C-alpha cells in the first residue's frame, strides 16, 4: 500500500493507540517471545516493514 505516513498525523489518536498497544505488550499472561514471534509472522504475511 502507498504509505499515508503517520508522522504528525492525528497525534492524540496515535497516543491512544500507543497506550493500548503498550498495555497489551507489557502486561498479560503470554510471554514476550511468543508475542514477538506472532508479531513477526504477521508482519511477514502482510509485508509490513515496521
Amino acid at each position, binding site marked *: *500500500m*502507498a504509505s*499515508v*505516513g*503517520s508522522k504528525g*498525523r*492525528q497525534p*492524540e*489518536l*496515535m497516543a*491512544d*493507540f500507543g*497506550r*493500548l498497544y503498550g*498495555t*497489551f505488550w507489557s*502486561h*498479560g499472561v503470554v510471554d514476550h517471545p511468543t508475542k514477538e514471534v506472532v508479531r513477526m509472522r504477521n508482519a511477514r504475511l*502482510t*509485508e509490513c516493514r515496521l
Partner: protein
Amino acid sequence: MALRPELDSLRLTLLDRLWDERLVEPIALELCRLRIAMLLGDDEAFAVRTPHAVMAGLDEGQIAALTDWAADARFTGAQRAALGAAELFVIDVRALDANQPGGLTEFFSSDEQYALLIGFAMFDGFGRMRRVLTD
C-alpha cells in the same frame, strides 16, 4: 475483553475520540465498520449502530445494499473509496493503494485517511478477536 478490562478501557477511549471528535465523516466510517463486521461474520458488531452515524443520517437502505456498494447509486464516491479500502484492509492489505483512481486520497485528507485506517485496524482486529473468542 472481560479478562483484560484495562485494555477494553483504552480501546473505548480510542474509539470515543475517533467518533466524538469526528476525525472522519461518521457515515462513511460506520459503513466501513459494518462492512468489516459483515466480512468477519461478526454478527454482534453488525447488529449495532453507532449513534454518531445515526445522528448524521445513517440510512438503513444503504446498509441493506452494503454488499453492492460498488454499483449501487446510493453510495457516494467517498463512501465507495472508504469501503473499497476497508475490504482490502481485511482481505488483502498488500493490495490497498490509497492513491489509485477513486481511492482514499481522492476524497479524504491525509489526517482523515489516517483516522480511517486506525478505525479499520480497531474494527478488524477486535472483530477477529471477538469472533474467535465467542465461537
